[in-house]
C-alpha cells in the first residue's frame, strides 16, 4: 500500500524530471554553487556539493534512454522555437561527454574530501566547493547547448571558476597564484578569439543556433568571413584545450592546483574544449570542403604528431610528478586531435573513444598521486619511493592506469590506440602510426620511471618535519581509495566490454560525418 503510494508520488516527479532533464543538468549545479558559499561548517559544503553532483548525474542518466532510443533530444528553452530561442540538443556525442563529466564530478568529490581537508583552509572550503559546482555547471553547459553564443558564456563560467580553483592550490604551493594568472591571460585570449569567430559566423549567417548556422553557411566554405570564423574558432578552442603550441599554461596550472582539482580538470576540462572543437568543425562548418581538408592535413595533423612526440619527451624530463602527468596529457590530446584530423568516421570515433579512455586513466593517475600525497607529501617522482610496500592498493591502481596510458593489452588504453592505428592505416597515414608507436615507447619510459621508484626503492622514513603533509584520518583515507580503485577497474573493464563508449563514439562519428546536422 505505502509502496504504491510512494511510487504514485515519485512517478510524476520522475516524468517531470525526465522531460526537463536537459536544463536541469545545468541549472542544478549553477544555482547550488552560490549556496555552498554559506555552508562553511565542517563537511556541510562537501556534502552539499556531493548531493548536487549526484543529482546532476541522475539527470544525465535520465537523458540516456531517450537519446539512445530517438538518436537525439531537442529542448527549447521556454518553448521558444529556434533559431530565435535557445535550443539544448543532446545526441550520442554530447551524451558521452555529459556522462563523463558528471560521473567525474561525483567521483572526484568522493575522492577529494581528505585531500581538501589537507590542503584547503577550513574557512575557504565553502568557496572552494562553490567554485567547483560552478565549474561543473559551465562544463556541462558547454556540452549540452546547441547555441553558439551559449557555448562562449558557459566556457567562461567554467574557466573563471577554474582560475579560482587553481589559485586555491597556493596553500600547498605558492606558485599557484602565478599559474592561475597565466592561465587566466591565456584562457581569456582563447575565449575572445572564440567569440570573434562566433561573431563572424553571425555576420555570415544571421543566426546563432548551430544547426541553423550549418544550414546557412553550407556551400559557402569559400566565403572569406566563414574562413576567418573557422580560423578564429579553431585557435580559440585550441588554446582552451591546450593544442600543441598553445599548451604552455597547462602544466603549471595542473601541477599547482589542489590535488582534487587536478583530478577533475585533467579528466574533464580539456575534454570539453575538445568536444566543442569537434562540434564546431563537423556540425557547424562543412567538413568535406577543401579548405577544412587543408587545415586538417597541414595544420591539425602535424600539430597532433608534434604534440605526441615533443610533449612525451618533455614528460620524460620532468621531476615534478604532476607536471609529468600534465605533459603526458598534452601528448594524449595529440592522439585525439590526430583522430579528428583524419576526418573519417573511423578516425573521429577512435579519437572520441580515446578521449573517454584518457579521462579514465589520467583521472586514476592523478588520484593515485593525490592519495599518496596524503601519507607523504608527494611532489616529485622521487617521493613515490617504496609506495608498492607502504600503500599496495594505491600503487596497484596507479600501475593499472599507467599501463593503460602506455596502451598495454588488457587495458582500455589499448583499445583506443588500436582503433586509432586502424583508422590511420585506412587513410594510409603510416607516419601517424610511426608517431603513435614512438610516443607509446616514450610513455613506457616515463611511466616506467615512476613504477620503478614505486616498487624497487626502499620507502623513505616518514619524518614529522614541516614538509610532510599531516596524515589524514584512516576513515576518510579509505573513502578516497574507493574512487581510485573504481577508476582503475574501469580501465580494465572497458578493455573487455567497450560497447558503451564505442557504441556512442561510433554513433556520434556517423552522425557528424554522415548526415550533416541531424
Amino acid at each position: 500500500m505505502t509502496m504504491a503510494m510512494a511510487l504514485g508520488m515519485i512517478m510524476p516527479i520522475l516524468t517531470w524530471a525526465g522531460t526537463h532533464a536537459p536544463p536541469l543538468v545545468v541549472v542544478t549545479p549553477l544555482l547550488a554553487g552560490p549556496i555552498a558559499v554559506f555552508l562553511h561548517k565542517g563537511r556541510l559544503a562537501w556534502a552539499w556539493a556531493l548531493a548536487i553532483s549526484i543529482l546532476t548525474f541522475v539527470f544525465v542518466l535520465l537523458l540516456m534512454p531517450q537519446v539512445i532510443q530517438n538518436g537525439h533530444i531537442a529542448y527549447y528553452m521556454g518553448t521558444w522555437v529556434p533559431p530565435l530561442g535557445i535550443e539544448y540538443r543532446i545526441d550520442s556525442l554530447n551524451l558521452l561527454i555529459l556522462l563523463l563529466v558528471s560521473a567525474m564530478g561525483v567521483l572526484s568529490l568522493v575522492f577529494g574530501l581528505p585531500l581538501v581537508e589537507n590542503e584547503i583552509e577550513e574557512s575557504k572550503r565553502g568557496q572552494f566547493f562553490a567554485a567547483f559546482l560552478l565549474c561543473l555547471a559551465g562544463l556541462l553547459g558547454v556540452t549540452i547547448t546547441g547555441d553558439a553564443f551559449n557555448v562562449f558564456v558557459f566556457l567562461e563560467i567554467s574557466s573563471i571558476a577554474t582560475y579560482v580553483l587553481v589559485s586555491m592550490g597556493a596553500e600547498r604551493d605558492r606558485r599557484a597564484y602565478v599559474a592561475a594568472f597565466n592561465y587566466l591571460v591565456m584562457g581569456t585570449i582563447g575565449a575572445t578569439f572564440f567569440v570573434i569567430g562566433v561573431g563572424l559566423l553571425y555576420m555570415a549567417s544571421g543566426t546563432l543556433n548551430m544547426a541553423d548556422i550549418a544550414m546557412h553557411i553550407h556551400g559557402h566554405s569559400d566565403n572569406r568571413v566563414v574562413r576567418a570564423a573557422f580560423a578564429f574558432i579553431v585557435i580559440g578552442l585550441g588554446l582552451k584545450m591546450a593544442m600543441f603550441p598553445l599548451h604552455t599554461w597547462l602544466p603549471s596550472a595542473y601541477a599547482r592546483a589542489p590535488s582534487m582539482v587536478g583530478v577533475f580538470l585533467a579528466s574533464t576540462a580539456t575534454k570539453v574544449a575538445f568536444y566543442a572543437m569537434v562540434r564546431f568543425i563537423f556540425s557547424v562548418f562543412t567538413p568535406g570542403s577543401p579548405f577544412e581538408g587543408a587545415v586538417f592535413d597541414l595544420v591539425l595533423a602535424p600539430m597532433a604528431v608534434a604534440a605526441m612526440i615533443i610533449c612525451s619527451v618533455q614528460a620524460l624530463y620532468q621531476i615534478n610528478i604532476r607536471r609529468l602527468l600534465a605533459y603526458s596529457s598534452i601528448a594524449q590530446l595529440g592522439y585525439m586531435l590526430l583522430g579528428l584530423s583524419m576526418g573519417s568516421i573511423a578516425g573521429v570515433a577512435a579519437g572520441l573513444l580515446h578521449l573517454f579512455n584518457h579521462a579514465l586513466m589520467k583521472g586514476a593517475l592523478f588520484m593515485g598521486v593525490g592519495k599518496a600525497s596524503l601519507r607523504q607529501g608527494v611532489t616529485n617522482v622521487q617521493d613515490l619511493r617504496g609506495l608498492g610496500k607502504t600503500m599496495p592498493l594505491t600503487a596497484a591502481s596507479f600501475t593499472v592506469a599507467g599501463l593503460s596510458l602506455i596502451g598495454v593489452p588488457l587495458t582500455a588504453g589499448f583499445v583506443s590506440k588500436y582503433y586509432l592505428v586502424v583508422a590511420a592505416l585506412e587513410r594510409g597515414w603510416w607516419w601517424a602510426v610511426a608517431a603513435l608507436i614512438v610516443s607509446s615507447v616514450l610513455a613506457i619510459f616515463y611511466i616506467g620511471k615512476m613504477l620503478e621508484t614505486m616498487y624497487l626503492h626502499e620507502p623513505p622514513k616518514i619524518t614529522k618535519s614541516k614538509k610532510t603533509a599531516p596524515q589524514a584520518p584512516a576513515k576518510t583515507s579509505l573513502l578516497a581509495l574507493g574512487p581510485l580503485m573504481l577508476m582503475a577497474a574501469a580501465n580494465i573493464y572497458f578493455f573487455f566490454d567497450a560497447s558503451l563508449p564505442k557504441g556512442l563514439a561510433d554513433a556520434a562519428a556517423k552522425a557528424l560525418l554522415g548526415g550533416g546536422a541531424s
Partner: protein
Amino acid sequence: MNGMQFLAGHFNYIVVIILMMTGLYIVISTGNMVKKLTGLGVFQTSVFQLYITMGKVTGGRPPIVAHAPEGAEHAAANGGEHGASTADTAVRMVHDMADVPVNGVIYSNPIPHVLILTGIVVGVATLAVGLALIVRIRETYDSIEEEDVEEAEYKARKAANA
C-alpha cells in the same frame, strides 16, 4: 578616391583591428601584470565594438517598435499557454527588423548588442578575478613584475636544494 571611400566605409572595422592588435601586443610585450590585464581589456573592447558594428543596418533606426505588430497583443494575452505562437510572432518580428522594413521603417539589429552585454559581464568578471590574483601575488612576492617573481622562485628553489 576609391581608397578613401573604402576607409570611410570600413572605419569601425579598422578601429577594431587596431584595438585588437594593440591589446594583444600589450599582453605579449609587458611583464607587468596590471598592464597585461589592461592589454587584455583593450583586446576585449575591440570585440565589443565588432559586435556593436555588425548590428548596424544601413539607414536603420533604433530598434524600438512604436506600435506592436498585429497578433503580438493577442499572443501576449495568452501568455505561456501558447508559447509556440508567441515565439512565432517574435520570429516574424525579428526577421522583419533585420531584413524588411516594418511599416516602411528599417530598424537596426538589436541582437548583437544584447549578446555583447553578456560579453562585457564576462570581461568584468575576468578582470576582477585577475586583479584579485595580482593582489595575492603582490602579497606573496612583493612585486607584480613577472621577472621579479621568477627570480624569487629561482632563489627559493636554490635555497631549498642547498
